[in-house]
Each structure stands twice: as structure tokens, then as C-alpha cells.
């Protein structure tokens, strides 16, 4: 086969959903760090979000499956630890989709600026942790709905 160009491969990877938060892609999440051809082998560098996140192995599998489905059969997945993942790498598209999905995107100030449901700023923290390692649990004091907040690290 002819080697697809690198921007095309990034577009394909942008269609691979995060297994825990399927409204954003692995590219939106900022965990795909590099895509490069080495001869006829495609090398993809991935970085873990949290060191113990159980989604990591599923993400590797999903990335490989998606690339194979596009006809690429020589793939090397590399784990890249450094520099460590930061929520600064979330794409703007990803942040907007998180809000639409009901998850407040990370903020440098350390807490959500507004409730993702009603948009009110009167929110309080219930727990520093949530249903996945990357989220904390908050509540809106206006609409009274609980919501997830994507932790800022």
C-alpha cells in the first residue's frame, strides 16, 4: 500500500474515542504525542493520563485497531512518559465537547468556572475524586445537579 500522509493519520486518530469519555477523541485528550513513519512501520507515541488509569491499555488497543482498519499493518506503539501529560494539552474542541456532555473542563484556578448544565457559577466541591482518575465530583448550588469536573493537572 502507499503510505498515508501524517496529517491523514492524525485525522483518523481524531476519530478514535476515549473509552471512558467517548465524546472526545484520544487526540482531543492530548495523549497522542507523535506520529511518524519509520520506513514502512508507523510509530505512534502515546502518553498515559494518570499512571494507573485502566483505560490506557484499552486506548492502545483501540488506536491499533483503528489503524489496522485503515489498512496499516505495521504499527509500533511507544509509551512516552516525558514530558508528563497535562490537561493543558486538551484541545479546544475537546473542552467544548466535555461541557456539552456535562463535564466541566479543567481550569488553572483548580475548580470549574460554571455548572455545565445551567451555566451558573455558584458551584461547590463534593469530592476531589470521581468516577475515573481524571475527574472530581462537584455540585451546582443553583440547579442542584451534581456534575463531573475534569481535574486540572
Amino acid at each position, binding site marked *: 500500500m502507499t503510505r498515508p500522509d501524517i496529517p491523514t493519520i492524525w485525522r483518523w486518530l481524531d476519530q478514535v474515542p476515549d473509552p471512558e469519555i467517548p465524546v472526545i477523541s484520544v487526540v482531543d485528550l492530548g495523549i497522542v504525542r507523535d506520529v511518524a513513519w519509520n520506513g514502512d512501520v508507523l510509530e505512534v507515541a502515546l502518553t*498515559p493520563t*494518570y*499512571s*494507573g*488509569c*485502566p483505560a490506557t491499555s484499552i486506548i492502545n488497543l483501540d488506536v491499533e485497531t483503528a489503524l489496522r482498519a485503515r489498512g496499516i499493518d505495521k504499527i509500533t506503539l511507544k509509551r512516552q*512518559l*516525558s*514530558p*508528563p*501529560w497535562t490537561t493543558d494539552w486538551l484541545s479546544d474542541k475537546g473542552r467544548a465537547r466535555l461541557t456539552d456532555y456535562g463535564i466541566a473542563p479543567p481550569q488553572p484556578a483548580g475548580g470549574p468556572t460554571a455548572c455545565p448544565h445551567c451555566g451558573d457559577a455558584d458551584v461547590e466541591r*463534593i*469530592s*476531589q*475524586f*470521581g*468516577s475515573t*482518575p481524571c475527574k472530581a*465530583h462537584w455540585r451546582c448550588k443553583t440547579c442542584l445537579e451534581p456534575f463531573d469536573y475534569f*481535574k486540572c*493537572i
Partner: protein
Amino acid sequence: MSDGLFQFLLRMGDNTLVLGHRISEWCGQAPGLEEDIALANTALDLIGQTQMWLGYAAEVEGAGRTADDLAFLRDVWDFRNLLMLERPNLDFGHTITRQFFFDAFHVLLLTRLQASSDARVAEIAAKSVKEAAYHLERSADLVIALGDGTDESHQRMQSAVDLLWPFAGEMFAADDVDNAMAAAGIAPDPASLRAEWQRKVDQVMADATLTLPESQFAHQGGKTGRQHTEHLGHMLAQMQWLQRAYPGATW
């Protein structure tokens, strides 16, 4: 040097493994859903860090073992964790006080390890320190909330501090392995972390209306492997039984 590095990496990985396993024992039975989830998530971070430390330890050893082999197929006398971390959880106050003492130490150590002369150590520390800082924020807050809480919670926290204090000194006791790591620029002398740790602990204890015992006696023997408490064997029996009963089992 490589044996010293191997021992140092075992200490890092065994600390996170043993504490990670201990706090995972709260899963499904913590005093509130939020605390249950928080402890399970903290355990998950620590086990993730264990994979990195013990994975590197296995490479350095060069004997064909993996991180899983080191975690599941070593016996008590081969573990190099601090004694404090293998203690049973007892009540929630004891669990959180231990977590705070360790988190405050862990953040200082990982911060310094980011400048390690060993690139892999620096890389693992840079990844782990972000998680450890988050753990410390929570454990310090809880120590204050419970210490400066009700009469019952205050009493339980003070008794946890009294019980755990004699185990704190082991974190800062240096031996030949530490001296070799410090000389090679791989890790700081643990004694050099003590003053800053003490400042943080003093500040949180004051806010929590808790009092540190005056004794400087320190139980030792965990990180050197000379003598663990009777509790570690019981913990390993539970943690390792599947690999012992069904060697090589995978899913």
C-alpha cells in the same frame, strides 16, 4: 552501583505497592461514598506508579523478571517498604494520618527526584509528583477536618498520631544504599528532606489541633528488609494468593 539502584527502585516501588494495596482494602467499605472513591483512586495512582518503579527495577536487575514477578512472587524478607505502610488500616483516622505523613514525604522526595542524574528515575518522578501533590492536598485537608472536628474524631486522630509517630523516622534514616544514591546524584539523602517535612507536618498539626509526641524513637527495618512487622505476611498472603495458587495466570 546497579545493585544499589535496584534496591533503591524496590524501595520506591514497594512503598507505593504496599500502601496502594492497603488503602484499596477500603474499597466498598469506606465511611462515605466520596471517601471510598477517593481512596480507591489514590490506590490506583499508587499502583500505576508501582508499575513504573518495579518495571524499571526489573530491567536494572537484568534477571528476566517483570514488575508483576517482583510484586507477586517475592516473600516478606525481600520487600523494601517502610514499616508504617504495611500496618493494618485500623480506623479511617489512622488510614488518613498515615497517608498524610507519607504524602508529605513522597511529594518532597519526588520533587527532588525530578532532578535525578538517572533519566528514567527523573521521568517517573515527574509523572508521579503531580499525582502525589493531589493526594497530599486531600490527606492534609482531612487531617485538619477530623483533628479539628468532633470530640470523637479529634480523639481518634490524636491516637492515630501517637501510634504512627514512632514509624515516621524510618522515612529519613539513611543507610549505605541511600549514601550510594546520593553520591551518584540519583536520589537525595533522605535526612535532607526532614526539616521541610517537619515544617509541613507542624503546620497541619497546629491547624488540626493535634499534638506530636516528643519522642524521636523510630522503628526501622522495613526499607532495609532486616525486619518487617508481622502484618506484611498477612497482607501478601491476600495480595499474592492468585499468582501463588495459579502460577502465571493472566486475563
